[in-house]
């Protein structure tokens, strides 16, 4: 009897320490982890029919991500994130009508655009017997954009730790100061504020499956237009709501985990969207894991989206030809290969993303030009000590 009780206590303690997402009793990480990921993001060139008058080359971005997660005393953890991006290429400047009457796009700056983005975020978490709370502050800077942000969040376990309730708040104060403002009659400097709150409930369903539902509200105010577009006039406030649902199930016989996520989104620019993705995390022996994943996304158009800029309309009238405000759908697929060798873990990921108005689940009254297609490849290394 004593042996059985001891085994249970050992099993319980081991499980409690190992639970990454659904903790029994919260505790700081038992090991420190340093992670680094290098990614290359490459957008496909536009076709000559989409942009008859400009260069066709779009963004090529290298991303370096660094993360440190470590215990800080008995009840706290430290989280440090640093990112560095360097990009070159061009983005849509304005749209017009081609000789055949169809919309065409003109890219900005051709091969002249290059920018860097550096971001640093530091956070800490305090662990209680039945929950935890934490916060972070961050700073992000580009040649023409700066953001300072902070956030708080807390979680608490109920119902014999079968249910976890989380909530959080974040605020970002951003400043945009476009390059060549005088030359191109762009705004000199503008501000933007974003405040976001979220709440979520996670529930263990049985020994192999769990479910999470989350709701977030974001309020943006200030300069929400794109200063690099020739004519882009948007409202100066936006309210966003997103409802996310996630399900996880482990298949013991297959030694694999199945993930499915769904999100509904709506904002008062008039955009609604559905996002769903699935992934299968197949263990291969003790060392390797293969993770194929698929994602589908579709959004409706903003109320003021136009696929051909109207330069004769008054500047008090909202309008934007930004393809990101058009109705479109996107499918993407990728695969990750993970090698876990104890202290070291390496992850190689390749992904292909295709956006097209024909994939849209919503009505497309004005098909946009310049929808994005891209390839992304990443190599990540984790070291635990």
């Amino acid at each position, binding site marked *: 009897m004593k042996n059985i009780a001891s085994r249970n206590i050992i*099993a319980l303690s081991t*499980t409690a320490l190992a*639970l*990454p*997402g659904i903790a029994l009793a919260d505790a700081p990480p038992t090991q420190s982890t340093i992670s680094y*990921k290098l*990614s290359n*993001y490459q957008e496909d060139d536009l076709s000559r029919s989409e942009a008859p008058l400009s260069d066709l080359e779009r963004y090529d971005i290298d991303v370096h*991500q660094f*993360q440190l997660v470590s215990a800080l005393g008995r009840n706290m953890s430290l989280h440090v*994130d640093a990112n560095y991006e360097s990009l070159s290429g061009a983005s849509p400047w304005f749209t017009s009508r081609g000789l055949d009457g169809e919309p065409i796009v003109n890219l900005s700056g051709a091969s002249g655009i290059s920018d860097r*983005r550096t*971001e640093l975020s530091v956070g800490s978490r305090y662990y209680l017997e039945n929950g935890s709370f934490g916060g972070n502050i*961050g700073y992000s800077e580009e040649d*023409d*954009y700066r*953001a300072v*942000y902070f956030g708080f969040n807390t979680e608490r376990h109920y119902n*014999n730790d*079968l249910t976890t309730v989380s909530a959080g*708040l*974040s605020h*970002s104060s951003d400043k945009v100061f476009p390059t060549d403002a005088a030359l191109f009659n762009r705004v000199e400097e503008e501000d933007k504020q974003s405040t976001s709150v*979220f709440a*979520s409930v*996670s*529930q*263990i*369903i*049985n*020994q192999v499956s769990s479910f*999470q539902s*989350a709701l*977030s*509200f*974001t309020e943006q105010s200030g300069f929400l237009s794109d200063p690099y577009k020739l004519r882009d006039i948007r409202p100066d406030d936006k309210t*966003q*709501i*997103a409802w*996310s649902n*996630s399900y*996880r199930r*482990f298949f013991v016989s297959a030694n*694999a*985990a199945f993930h499915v996520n769904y999100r509904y*989104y709506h904002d008062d*620019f008039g955009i609604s969207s559905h996002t769903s993705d699935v992934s299968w995390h197949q*263990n291969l022996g003790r060392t390797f*894991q293969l993770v194929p994943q698929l994602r589908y*996304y579709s*959004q409706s158009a903003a109320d003021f989206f136009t696929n051909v800029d109207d330069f004769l309309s008054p500047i008090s009238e909202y309008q934007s030809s930004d393809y*990101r*405000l058009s109705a479109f759908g*996107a499918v993407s697929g990728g695969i990750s290969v993970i090698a876990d060798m104890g202290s070291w873990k390496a992850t190689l990921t390749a992904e292909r*993303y295709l*956006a097209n108005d024909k994939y849209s689940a919503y009505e497309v009254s004005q098909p946009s030009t310049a929808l994005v297609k*891209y390839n*992304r490849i*990443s190599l*990540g290394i984790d070291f635990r000590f």
Partner: protein
Amino acid sequence: MRAFRTTLLLAICSLMLFSCADVRAWERGYLAREEMAWAPDALESSLNDHIFFSKEASSGGNSAAGGGCGCN
């Protein structure tokens, strides 16, 4: 149609919540596996969020937003 879809989703969610088994701590070994986490690879999730935030109109969901960017 939208009301029907919302009601259906809420019904499914409620059903899942009310049909939960009492899973003891020592029975949570599979749930504790790394691949069962909501976001098994934090850097991958962060990168994807950043890309989709830059190329699509939607954002948010299961966390509060971080800092913005001048992504065009």
